[in-house]
């Protein structure tokens, strides 16, 4: 009798529990980020749940370096989240593969109309011109300088993108800086991020584009004849020379040499996010300059981690509601500001004095409209970036430049051929 009672009551409890779980809509969100961002997402989810008691936001963290691998694993296990964070250049691959759904109908209209042009560009799929992802932010890379060292060599400090250093000026300054006392390395290009990181393609490919070539021809979608062309060989030889001369912070020395004790690195080719940590340590000694011009025109990177809604989501409307909530949330924006986030929404730009005219990172914002070149928006992008990373590693370690680039170009074209040209990117419908 006692046993039966126990059984009955436990069955009732289980039923009640599952009923309550069923009443709540679970929205899974996969994301990456530093511990600070992870905490920010956690708080954000709590605020949303407080306003929407019938929704349960489940956060799935995947580390930055292995994010795409983790995502593939989720696809294979049919465990796609509702909302996923994605790196903008991978958007074409995800949409082409059928993982992402258009988001225009599920995101609040005021958020959509608030997007900057570069934000729209990074979330749009080239084939159907639909918006598949949205973010609060965008990104850029600038040239940071140590004011004291720059004054010592009497370098001209560019005020806007239009008067950026030329290649000759830049290399002459590196040479001069290498002889300044206290300077161990004239420049940090953040090799410390590793050799298997999107940073390489993100930060170094604008140097190719500025020199007059590219990772791949964006009309014929062929890499051979482009990545291994003379301008690219020259540009990468130039970078190899910097490394050979001992001008570049080596990979094993970490990513803090610009502001570390004694300030061993004089310049830093760094992302906008680097400003927060550098300025915290060096205050007014940090000078922010536009990326140098290595050829006829300047080039700078763009695109960042943005939010998309997957085709597997059963509640795209609620997922969209959460994304809209996130992009408007004040505390979340405040945290982003503390990380010197690059605004991707007009209203967020208006509350970011750092990027407004006269602000320390105004030059970074100016680059977006004048020199930004997105990474190739093609479904072969995972192969393109992997091949280029390998080439850069060989080149920075005294490998043959032409050989490394043509090997990479061949690998890229091979991948495109393996996928039948990724129709309709090959022109077929």
């Amino acid at each position, binding site marked *: 009798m006692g046993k039966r009672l126990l059984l009955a009551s436990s069955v009732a409890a289980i039923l009640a529990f599952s009923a309550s779980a069923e009443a709540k809509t679970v929205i899974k969100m996969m994301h990456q980020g530093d511990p600070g961002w992870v905490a920010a997402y956690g708080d954000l989810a709590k605020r949303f749940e407080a306003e929407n008691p019938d929704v349960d936001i489940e956060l799935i963290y995947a580390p930055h370096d292995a994010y*795409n*691998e983790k995502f*593939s694993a989720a*696809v*294979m296990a049919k465990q796609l989240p509702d909302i996923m964070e994605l790196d903008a250049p991978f958007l074409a691959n995800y949409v*082409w*593969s*059928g993982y992402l759904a258009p988001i225009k109908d599920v995101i609040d209209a005021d958020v959509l109309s608030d997007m900057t042009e570069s934000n729209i560009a990074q979330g749009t799929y080239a084939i159907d011109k639909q918006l598949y992802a949205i973010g609060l932010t965008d990104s850029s890379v600038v040239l940071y300088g140590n004011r004291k060292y720059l004054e010592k060599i009497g370098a001209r400090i560019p005020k806007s993108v239009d008067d950026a250093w030329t290649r000759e000026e830049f290399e002459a300054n590196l040479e001069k800086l290498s002889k300044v006392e206290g300077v161990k390395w004239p420049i940090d290009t953040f090799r410390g991020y*590793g*050799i*298997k990181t999107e940073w390489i393609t993100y930060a170094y490919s604008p140097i190719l584009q500025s020199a007059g070539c590219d990772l791949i021809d964006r009309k014929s979608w062929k890499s051979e004849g482009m990545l291994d062309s003379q301008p690219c060989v020259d540009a990468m030889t130039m970078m190899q020379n910097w490394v050979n001369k001992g001008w570049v912070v*080596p*990979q*094993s*020395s*970490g990513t803090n040499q610009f502001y570390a004790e004694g300030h061993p690195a004089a310049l830093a080719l760094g992302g906008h996010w680097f400003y927060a940590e550098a300025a915290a340590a060096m205050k007014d000694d940090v000078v922010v300059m536009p990326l140098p011009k290595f050829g006829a025109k300047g080039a700078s990177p763009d695109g960042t981690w943005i939010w998309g809604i997957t085709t597997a989501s059963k509640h795209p409307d609620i997922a969209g509601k959460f994304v809209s909530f996130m992009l408007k949330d004040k505390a979340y924006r405040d945290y982003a500001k503390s990380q010197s986030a690059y605004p991707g929404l007009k209203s967020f730009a208006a509350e970011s004095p750092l990027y407004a005219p006269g602000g320390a990172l105004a030059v970074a914002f100016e680059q977006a409209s004048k020199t930004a070149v997105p990474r190739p928006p093609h479904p072969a992008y*995972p*192969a393109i970036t*992997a091949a280029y990373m*390998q080439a850069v*590693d*060989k080149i*920075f*370690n*005294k*490998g043959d430049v032409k050989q490394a680039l043509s090997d990479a170009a061949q690998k890229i074209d091979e*991948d495109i051929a*393996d*996928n*039948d040209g*990724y*129709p309709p990117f090959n022109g077929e419908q």
Partner: protein
Amino acid sequence: MSMSSAGAAATAAQRPAPRKGARRDRIRLFQEMGMLAPAVILMTVFLIAPFILSFWTAMTNQPLVPRPTPVRFVGLANFIRIFNDPLFWTALWNVTRFTIWIIPVQCGLAFLTALLLHQKIPFRNLFRGLFFLPAITSMVVVCVIWATLFQYPTGPFNQILGFLSFGMIQPIDWLGDPNWAMFSIVLLSAWQAYGFQMIIYLAGLQGISEELYDAARIDGANALQRFWNVTMPGLRPTHVFVLVITTIQAFKLYTQVAILTQGGPKNSTETVVHYMVRIGYEEQKLGYASAVSVILFLIVLVIALLQRFLLRRYDV
């Protein structure tokens, strides 16, 4: 519980008269099959089937995740591409290099510590535990700690070297210099994993009868002679076993490389398994990666057979 009921069933089956022999055999057959079944099913599902599947996948252009383009049978195209990829040969040469370096370092270290800890020294068990500690520490943790030790130019190793040589030795970029990277990985891998081989050697040493040493002493053999003529021959099977497992482990080098160097600098630490994972996960070519795994399996198989053949007279 299940054991005793099975036993009861067996005696029940044996009790009937011999004329029911055929039936008894059949029952016994079922019993044996039933007892084998769990192992056979598990082996088939988790070992044999995936293995056959990987052979099959290696012949297709199967992507890691579904794509709009069709999956096709491509025959031996993947294998041909692997053999034409200089990076594969670099990876194969790198693991060979790694294996040749790590066997003396790791097995030597394991052997020496085992000899030391076999002596009747005070706190012997405590020391055994301490020396075994790295082996039970996660390789990931070891890698992160050693990355700090290896730091260039101001990490502890470089400072110690500089201090001991009065500044004569310039700081070494342990993990960033193509000439040093693999050697650095050998050092840390040997340190992390030697404990396992040490335990095997200790067991081997304990297996040598004390009487043999007594007899040698009576014959007037000194310590060195006892070592060469009693300890070493007594450890032959252990040596062979340690050699084979160390080789196989070395060929599967992955974790250290994935965490510390990602195959760089200049592919100097690219290994076959890392190459396979890179192609399978980053480039998302599952068919191609399966072909690499089939080749790796064959290589390891050939080496294991070769070692057995060459060392057959020591009879493991």
